[in-house]
């Protein structure tokens, strides 16, 4: 047993942290809030040039060919910096779907561009008044000659305003399929709306959108299985992101608790507050090891059916609870826009609600533990 990272891994972490400190400062993060595009070109370009955007894309497609464990380090830094980038939707989920199920032609066309940051892809998955499960996908995919006609409404499509392709989940005769769709196609309407984290969200309306049959990723009816496989990998990274955000929020809170004085004492000398922070640190440090264990298992080619949902469930809840406790420690200023605590506070809740929420993750764990 050994929890140390290799020198190369430490170097990836240091490089990512330094890059994000410079190009994803709080000022920059604040500027991007509610922006319909949602990410600064300079940051995206820097991340692409340093290999972070294509980290998970194999070297043969121009990426870094890193493991999920390496990527977990990057994601902890993304969480710390609250970096506003379409990395997860493009470099993790879309790249993952293409790798998992894409044809050679699809991979050749898109993976190098994803890795270089020149193209952004994003999944169009969830639908109004529907849940996270397979039955939640009710948009239709109807074969018509050599084409497929897509109709339906998608919500929570991140960074769609900047996307070169959407990966639309829609229901065909054989079940859920995945389709590459150009968002500028006729019949596609994108509408930006505001989200709790202030990351860009879009409603995507598909009204008889025609795509060629070879726009489908993978065999007929295999879309949901591919999506599940890739999302299991992805949520380990979101758990890492949650740990990064929680850790930084706690660090800043500890600094404040050491300096702000009430009743002639620094706040941190009040045991009620010190114990909130001790509890938070325990959950963060434990959650971090769970993330590493999940990512390590993935990198070893072992099953992550149990570890992945556990990691997201635990770490996102730890993030949410940490930001709640931190806000309490900051007192009234936490409620103001001016202070940064609220930025973590909003992001933590959104991350917990997104990409499989608490009840869905609990059911994934329960299924693996009880029904196996």
């Amino acid at each position, binding site marked *: *047993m*050994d*929890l*140390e*990272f*290799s020198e190369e*891994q430490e170097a990836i972490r240091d490089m990512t942290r330094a890059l994000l400190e410079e190009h994803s400062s709080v000022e920059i993060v604040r500027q991007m809030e509610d922006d319909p595009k949602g990410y600064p070109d300079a940051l995206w370009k820097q991340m692409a040039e340093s290999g972070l955007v294509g980290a998970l894309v194999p070297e043969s497609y121009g990426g870094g060919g890193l493991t999920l*464990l390496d990527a977990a380090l990057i994601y902890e830094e993304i969480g710390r910096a609250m970096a506003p980038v379409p990395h997860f939707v493009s470099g993790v989920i879309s790249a993952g779907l293409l790798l998992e199920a894409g044809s050679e032609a699809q991979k050749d066309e898109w993976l190098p561009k994803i890795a270089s940051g020149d193209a952004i892809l994003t999944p169009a998955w969830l639908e109004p008044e529907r849940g996270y499960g397979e039955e939640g996908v009710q948009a239709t995919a109807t074969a018509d000659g050599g084409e497929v006609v897509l109709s339906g409404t998608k919500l929570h499509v991140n960074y769609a305003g900047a996307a070169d392709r959407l990966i639309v989940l829609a229901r065909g005769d054989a079940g859920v399929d995945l389709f590459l769709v150009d968002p500028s196609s006729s019949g596609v309407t994108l509408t930006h709306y505001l989200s709790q984290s202030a990351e860009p969200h879009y409603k995507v309306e598909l009204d008889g959108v025609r795509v060629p049959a070879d726009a489908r990723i993978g065999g007929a009816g295999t879309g949901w299985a591919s999506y599940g496989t890739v999302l299991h990998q992805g949520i380990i990274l979101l758990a890492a992101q949650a740990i990064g955000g929680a850790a930084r929020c*706690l660090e800043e809170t*500890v600094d404040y*608790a*050491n300096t702000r004085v009430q009743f002639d*004492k*620094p706040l*941190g*000398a*009040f*045991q009620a507050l*010190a*114990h909130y*922070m*001790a*509890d938070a*640190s*325990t*959950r963060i*440090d*434990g*959650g971090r*090891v*769970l993330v*590493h*264990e999940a990512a*390590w*298992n993935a990198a070893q080619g072992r099953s992550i059916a*149990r*570890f992945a949902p*556990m990691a997201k*469930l*635990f770490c996102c809840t730890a993030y949410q609870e940490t930001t709640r406790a931190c806000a309490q420690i900051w007192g009234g200023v936490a409620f103001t826009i001016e202070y940064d605590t609220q930025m973590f506070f909003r992001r933590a809740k959104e991350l917990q609600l997104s990409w499989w929420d608490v*009840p869905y*993750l*609990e*059911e*994934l*764990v*329960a299924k693996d*533990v*009880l*029904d196996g």
Partner: protein
Amino acid sequence: MDFDLSPEEQKFSDEVEQWLVEHHDPVVMDHHRENFSQLSDTPERRAFMKKLADKGWLGMSWPKEYGGQEIEGVYEFILNEALSKHAAPQIGKGVGIIGKTLIRHGSDKLKQEFLPKILTADVEFAVGYSEPQAGSDAANMQLKAEKVEGGWKLNGQKMWTTSAHFADWYWVGARTDPDKKKHDGLSLFLIPMDHPGLEVQSLPTIGKDTTNQVFFEDVFVPDDYLVGERGRGFHMISEALDLERFTMFTLSPITNRTDLLVDWVKQAKRDGKPLKDDPQTRKTIANIATDTAVAKALSTRFICAAMKGGKPPTIQSSQYKLFTTTLSQRVCDEALDISSAAGTIREGQELAPLLGRFEGAYRATMNETVGGGASEIQKNIIARRHLGLPKNF
């Protein structure tokens, strides 16, 4: 990064596992004792400890010159986890606290007298730190040790001395230097448990075991039986805790209980329907299983820190103990909630689900968040030493 045991460690773990299966003894390995098998003073338990000694599994991490194997502490961790997984008695305070302190600070006489007996499991100890006025604040011990001709005269009272009713020797902290600062006025003594002037009074608990109060009336201890240097008692006590990190609080009983609950839920029925299909139960199980994985992660974290050597992994062990003991109680609580009214049936009766394992465990685990450094004390340590917050008590 590697979450697996090394091949040598795995080999040892497999060997212990196989040995425990082969030497299964339902009297000694009683899961209903909830991690306290080492406290049951039966001939079977003593015989079992002799067998562990014969295997060379007592004192593995001790220096060779004292009969040890100078093996890394992780092997004792593996052994203790395996023992507690099988509900067998663990290797205990003789090999740990007392042996290791004597090796570092004891006189040749004390080493010769005690170390061989510890390795052969021929001596049982009781540890007496706590007193009515010295609980979490262990340095506040008031048991009076007065210098007399040739030794010391002890008067006062100890609280919570587990095993005092069957131990052979008493490892006791007492105040030899009342004029010095609280932490510098204590010394450690070894006293035969049957010494005249020692009176052991049982304190029954809601767990399976009794603990004790011990009263001292003019108990004479010869100079030779003051351990190490006079006035260094508290420092040796703290150091022994650090040396004992590998075996401090085992995880296996908790993972066992989580597994047991899962297996039970899988086949139990309520109103004719499988309990495992109940949404509330599924939610509970998912969270307990997840938190059990986190407890394991925190255990791995502190064992890895301990294996690195150097500074004792105080923070890691505090986080581990805080999280794990809280979870341990929660598992029992949730198990009783899942059992519903049947959870009220007292342990040991056929009518109870799982023979009342969780009713018993609910009681037995009550003290886990208090003994061995209460949760609040762990949080104080984490707040100050890990986060760098001001002293808050």
